[in-house]
């Protein structure tokens, strides 16, 4: 065995171990008690893989590798230290970085001509840069919208889907032509260019409420582009990591689309329908009952079972720490308090759980929608904080409602429903919520943080 072959063999073995560690890493994420082992496994796998790669016989110069690793770590640390409310945009940004890496390497491989001989190589290379290019700009757009640098509302124009379809068709068509006629090198920058523009156009029509699905979908695209890069470079570890990431993003986008009652094809093609604002603003004079913090505190302390339903509005109002104080005060009085988490609460899958965990609320008190829905009829008080559409009973009963069919938290079945809300203005999607007019509903008008604070003062101060 020559020395080169031996080092190649060693690297492949290291990659094999790293692949196993990556799979274990994800497996251990299944429960909070083992999840931190998962990180350790992932980190060891990553260090092994990078270390092994540095042994590669073809590497003649380490200077720029070192520069890249040091600079990247320098950028990575602040990106790892962002606030928990900013995690969605950080995640979108890291999808963009991953896709950028894949697209740049793909571009360099093309001009080095390593793939020009094989049709298969050229096909996967095209796939790599198309997916990479659109994920790069698409994720930047998503991050911009989440960070509110870009307008959150959907930007639509006539024939939008048609334009997008033609553009994407041009990219794929050029790629096919390039595979069949490898001498047509001028097509390559066109393919990359179209993909990059396509990524922007794909995200423009998507509004803030659809972000959990979009982030998951971009996650999937980023994984698939990395897997395509694995095919180009004949790197099995990359294929496996890309496939894991791709399937993870795919599963999450399916869960998110189900939770928002969007069809499966909608997810696959990224054509997220916009919520049509229902023009039925007729019944405005319907009476609602409201209550003061004192009354709310009295009802809560008389209850046995309380379910708190947090929405993104709670996080916007920075009320999660006050909610935690409310949880403590009620628990101390012997009230059983749990939290009902809708899958799309927050701006990305699982975001609400992280926000509540950050406020030190124990994770075994955070209950998923399917598990807690059966308990609402035995619940004394359901307290809705900053959530709207996910509690709208019209989704169950009113066929004309734009959200009809969306799975919701059945808070209306609780004995008493209390809703903290600034005013009676319809929420984000502009849909009226019949929950507010029910006989067993009390509206608590005010800022979530201040109102919860006032209830807590009443509970702890007034004995």
């Amino acid at each position, binding site marked *: 065995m020559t020395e080169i072959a031996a080092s190649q063999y060693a690297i492949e073995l290291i990659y094999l171990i790293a692949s196993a560690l*990556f799979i274990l*890493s*994800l*497996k251990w994420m299944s*429960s*909070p*008690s083992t*999840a*931190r082992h998962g990180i350790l496994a992932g980190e060891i796998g*990553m260090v092994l*893989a*990078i270390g092994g*790669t540095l042994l590669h016989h*073809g*590497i*003649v110069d*380490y200077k*720029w*590798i070192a520069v*890249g690793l040091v600079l*990247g770590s320098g*950028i*990575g640390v602040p*990106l*790892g230290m962002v606030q*928990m409310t900013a995690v969605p945009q950080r*995640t979108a940004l*890291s999808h963009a970085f*991953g896709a950028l*890496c894949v697209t740049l*390497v793909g*571009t*360099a491989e093309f001009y*080095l001509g390593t793939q020009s001989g094989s049709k*298969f190589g050229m096909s996967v290379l095209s796939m790599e840069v198309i997916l990479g290019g659109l994920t790069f700009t698409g994720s930047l757009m998503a991050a911009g919208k989440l960070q509110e640098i870009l307008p959150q509302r959907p930007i639509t124009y006539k024939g939008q889907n048609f334009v997008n379809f033609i553009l994407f068709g041009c990219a794929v068509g050029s790629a096919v032509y390039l595979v069949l006629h490898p001498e047509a090198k001028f097509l390559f920058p066109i393919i990359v260019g179209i993909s990059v523009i396509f990524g922007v156009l794909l995200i423009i029509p998507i509004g803030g409420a659809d972000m959990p699905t979009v982030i998951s979908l971009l*996650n999937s695209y980023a*994984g698939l582009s*990395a*897997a395509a890069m*694995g*095919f180009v*470079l004949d*790197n099995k570890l*990359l*294929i496996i*990591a890309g*496939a*894991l*990431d791709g*399937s*993870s*993003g795919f599963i999450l986008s399916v*869960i998110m689309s189900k939770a928002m009652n969007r069809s499966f094809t909608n997810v696959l093609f990224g054509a997220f329908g916009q919520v049509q604002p229902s023009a039925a603003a007729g019944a405005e004079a319907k009476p609602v009952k409201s209550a003061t913090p004192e009354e709310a505190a009295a009802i809560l302390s008389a209850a046995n079972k309380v379910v708190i339903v947090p929405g993104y509005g709670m996080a916007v109002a920075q009320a999660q720490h006050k909610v935690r104080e409310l949880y403590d005060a009620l628990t101390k009085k012997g009230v059983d308090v749990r939290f009902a988490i809708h899958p799309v609460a927050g701006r990305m*899958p*699982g*975001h609400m*759980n992280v926000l509540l965990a950050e406020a030190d609320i*124990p*994770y075994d008190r*955070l209950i998923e929608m399917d598990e807690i829905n059966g308990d609402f009829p035995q619940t004394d008080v359901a307290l809705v904080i900053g959530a709207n559409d996910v509690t709208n009973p019209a989704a169950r009963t009113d066929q004309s409602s734009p959200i009809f069919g969306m799975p919701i938290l059945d808070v209306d079945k609780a004995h008493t429903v209390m809703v903290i809300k600034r005013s009676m203005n319809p929420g984000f999607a502009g849909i009226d919520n019949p929950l507010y007019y029910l006989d067993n509903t009390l509206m608590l008008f005010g800022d979530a943080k201040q109102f919860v604070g006032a209830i807590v003062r009443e509970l702890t101060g007034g004995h």
Partner: protein
Amino acid sequence: MGSHLIDLLFIFMLACFIGFEVIRHVSPLLHTPLMSLTNALDAIAVVGAIVLVGERKSEYATILGTIAIVAATSNVVGGFLITDRMLKMFKSSRPDK
């Protein structure tokens, strides 16, 4: 050469199935850290960039590759860091230590 490509496709197919099975069992509680973890793992693409830069086949490839290393490394470091920070926050109400 042809059969080698088929081997790679087999690996891809099997890895997708493993991915589906493993991810399906991840608690919805942990979907956000899951995404930041897969993101960090996905940045293994950095190995492709490392070889590209190290081989110094052209100035052009070195420049693109170095930017690629920076992008991917920031994902590795940032991804593991934030996943760890998030998981540290998840505490049970039943102290188990």
